[in-house]
């Protein structure tokens, strides 16, 4: 299989994946105990209130009818109106998605910037005090809940040193990056811990490989060996791990967005599940699924470009 046909096949695979996700989401959301009307009005809801709201929302229709209506909406690019916010789902997501994308993007960048050098130092100074310290520290931060890391960073760098604002989201791009610095760092700390371990192992594996010994024998400098051979080859497994971690990152983003008062989609998702806001949950799952599928697609493409053997 050529690289092109591999990539094409990967792109086409997204369509059935999304279809399955649509059906599963629709079903699971409706299997959740509790209904939107009760969630909206709370414990004061009378049977008449619930019936009236269900009728208004079309929830009095049989499930297959609701599903067809949902598929028709999705096909036309309309994700419906949020029950809780009384606003179009697409516009609410469009307002929030860039926030989470910027946050996770910054977190990914921070994680890479922190993980690669630390993993290299750790691998090159195998079993030294530095290696043990780095691995120990990453174990500690890995086991720390992200809300705790967030609060520690907030207390030190925002409340005491006043280097950063205590959460929120600015108006201009520069302000936003500034506001998102600490939340992104919080997210990055957990990702870094995961990456360091894996990257260190793959660097060690590459360092022990015969072609590195050969390169050394050829008289190449350590720097060239590291950049040309070790980094490139050890990044492939890290890339997959990074993509696999996207789900976890979104999960951590829920807490990070709450602690730092960042108005992203991770928090929106949790709020929507609590309020049984079916259209919003469905819309978010669709958007997130497309995003995650795209990330996997890009990862696969990049991996194939680094190592064309993977297309076969």
């Amino acid at each position, binding site marked *: 299989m050529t690289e092109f046909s591999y990539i094409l096949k990967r792109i086409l695979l997204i369509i059935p994946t999304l279809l399955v996700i649509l059906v599963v989401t629709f079903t699971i959301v409706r299997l*959740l*105990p*509790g*209904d*939107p009307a*009760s*969630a*909206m*009005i*709370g*414990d*004061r*809801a*009378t*049977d008449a*209130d*619930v019936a*009236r709201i269900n009728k*208004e929302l079309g929830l009095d229709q049989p499930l297959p009818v609701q599903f067809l209506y949902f598929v028709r909406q999705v096909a036309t690019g309309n994700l419906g*109106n949020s029950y*809780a*916010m*009384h*606003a179009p789902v697409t516009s*609410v997501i469009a*307002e*929030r998605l860039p926030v989470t994308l910027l946050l996770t993007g910054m977190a990914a960048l921070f994680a890479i910037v922190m993980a690669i050098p630390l993993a290299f130092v750790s691998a090159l100074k195998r079993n030294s005090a530095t290696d043990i310290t780095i691995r120990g520290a990453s174990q500690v931060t890995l086991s720390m809940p992200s*809300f705790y890391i967030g*609060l520690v960073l*907030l*207390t030190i760098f*925002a*409340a005491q040193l*006043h280097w950063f*604002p*205590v*959460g*929120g*989201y600015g108006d201009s791009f520069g302000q936003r990056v500034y506001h998102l610095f600490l939340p992104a760092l919080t997210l990055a700390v957990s990702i870094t811990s995961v990456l360091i371990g894996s990257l260190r192992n793959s660097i060690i594996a590459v360092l022990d490989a015969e072609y590195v010994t050969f390169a050394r024998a050829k008289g190449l400098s350590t720097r060239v060996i590291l950049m040309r051979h070790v980094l490139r080859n050890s990044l492939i497994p890290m890339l997959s791990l990074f993509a696999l971690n996207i789900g976890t990152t979104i999960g951590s983003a829920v807490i990070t967005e*709450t*602690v*730092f*008062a960042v*108005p992203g989609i991770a*928090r*929106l998702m949790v*709020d929507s*599940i*609590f*309020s*049984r806001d079916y259209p919003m949950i469905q819309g978010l799952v669709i958007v997130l699924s497309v995003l995650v599928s795209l990330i996997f697609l890009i990862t696969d493409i990049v991996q194939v470009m680094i190592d064309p053997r993977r297309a076969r």
Partner: protein
Amino acid sequence: MKVKTKLTLLALLATGALSTLSAHAAEVVQRGGTLVYGRYADSNFLEPVLNESNNDIWILSNLYDTLLLPTDDGKGIKPGLATAWKLSDDGKSLTITLRPDTKFSDGSPITAQDVKWSLERAAKPGNGVWQFLVSAIDNVSISDPHTVVVHLSHPDPAILSALTVFNTAIMPEKQFEAEPGATDHDKAAAFAEHPVGSGPFILKSWQHNSTMTLVRNPYYWAKGADGKALPYLDSIKFEIVPDDATRILKLQSGELDGAEFIPYSRVKELQGNASLDMKLFPSTRVEVGSVNARPEIDGKPNPLANPKVREALNYATDKDGIIQLVTFGIGKPMTSFMSTSTPLNSGTKPLYPVDVEKAQALMKEAGYPNGFTTSMNILAGNEDSLSIATGLQQMWSQIGVKLTINQMDNATLNANFRKGNFSTRIGPWTDDIADPNEITSYYAYSKNIQALHSGWKSDKLDQLFEASQKETDPAKRKEEYKEIQDIYNSTGPTIPLYESSYPVALKKDVQGFVQIPLGNNIFTSTWLKK
């Protein structure tokens, strides 16, 4: 020596005069500025009639004005867009004089037609969950441009209080009807994106779940202490900060001027902070345990149906202990099922002081000398509910009642509650109207939601409530409410726990802010000391 004494005297006098002057100056309001206020959750839908949550309600009064306004103690009424009102002798019509020359926030005049349309829309059956508060309104007629007559289908003693409630806000008919959409709901959704009201502020911008900015309404009618139009502030910026610890950090670091819902555990600490003013505003909020009183739950006999068992649970509950445990001493024991801030509360002393021996005797009388196993549904992740439930678990074990705790999310909790699929449950309540009819209709009246979905029923109480809803003699109505409370407090399906206040922390320079017992945040007379 003499000269020295005179000088000292003069200096003392001068200092005294200066301090009096500066104290006086401190009382003089200062205009302008932006107040940054941290809220724990965002509003969803800023539309007075069709909204559903407290997060909407508590902000609406800043954007929309009503004919009458609640007083700051939440118990009385004062003029709003109406300057005078008169009930007819038969109690079936209410003549209202409108304040002259009032305008909406877009500068258009508020007309009698707007008042008629707004009230009739609020009273239309099926229009929002608050419609029942004004269900007595049959129609509204216009006598002259400044007088409207509200015709009632039956006398309603709470009608004046109802005209202070957010869903009777006066809205501009033409602007509302010009919104896109086929239904009232569609138009309301569009209108709520850029509300036109006549409250002290106007919505300027809103990034959902992040910030909401209100600016002063230049057409607002009320005058401040300096004789000029209110409000004093130029704008209010609400920042949504759901995490309690972060909200407090933002306040302490100076990014916020005020923050709501300070956890009780942090109140003492903030009271000790010299730069903050830790307020505990009286509220109508009560925290109660609800008990399912149906003879059977899920086909099995239910011991909680026995009034003696409920009484035993009440005597076994150390309310003061729970108040210490959950509110760190800030709460107060309840004297009735309604708070002491609710008008016509007839309680004189705390209900069911702890008496384990009496509780044990009652359990024996009820036929459960060895107790039984029951469960309590609580909101997952809610620290207060978990503390209460674990406290009750330990307290009730003394009379042999084994309590299992079921934590669930709000939608599941409410769905089970509504279906009567629970044994006991913890939940709070806040009034929306300065009248006892709302809490009574939900908690005690079996024909509304089966006395808070408990399945409990008292024919006598139902009759009294129905009579009180039409009773226009205040003395008689007071008597009826006393009897209602006596019946409910002695035999009802609740474990009254505590009433609490609204903890709001403000910077010292924030003046004149009030959260009334109904929860509304009133920024009309708020100002910042510079």
